[in-house]
């Protein structure tokens, strides 16, 4: 891996990490319960992005498996939360 690409990957990891933590602000600020849960929509995509970037940086292939699990299960929160709206 060339130095330029590895530096770019590390910078990307830091920014993605900051994005996920920033999403917590919406979880705290609300105002509605749906707004708070929107932080999860972010986790489903941004979290997976962070995991695959870290998998490339640290050479941990397991992080890609974790990313698959995370995106696969990302719908469960919304499906469970809205379950009373369908019969």
């Amino acid at each position, binding site marked *: 891996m060339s130095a330029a690409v590895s530096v770019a990957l590390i910078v990307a990891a830091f920014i993605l990490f900051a994005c996920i933590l920033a999403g917590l602000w919406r979880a705290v600020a609300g105002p509605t319960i749906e707004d708070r849960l929107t932080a999860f*929509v972010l986790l489903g995509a941004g979290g997976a992005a962070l995991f695959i970037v870290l998998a490339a940086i640290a050479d941990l292939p397991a992080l890609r498996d974790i990313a698959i699990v995370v995106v696969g299960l*990302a719908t469960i929160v919304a499906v469970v939360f809205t379950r009373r*709206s369908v019969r």
Partner: protein
Amino acid sequence: MVIVDVLVITLLAAGVFFVVAGTVGLLRFPDLASRLHAVSKADVLGLGLIATALALHLLITEPGWAAVGVVAKLALIWILALIGTAANAYLMAGSRRRAEVETEEEP
């Protein structure tokens, strides 16, 4: 090699840009619908670009069946994220709209 590096870094930067844009939208937009719009579209696009950058980099630097397997995993992650995030946004927005309709009808 340099051209590939430039391409990879450009894709990566574009991907990170879209994720950041989605997050800023989530934090700064005024209501749920626009926040969902920002975060569900921009973030998944960002994920796709980042996955493309990683896949391209891997295929060029370490060509072989192992790389193809990893690329398949990255593609699976992106497809699942496409469907999952869109479904999430739809369900959340629908839930909010129903709650608003109910509060309008009640009083």
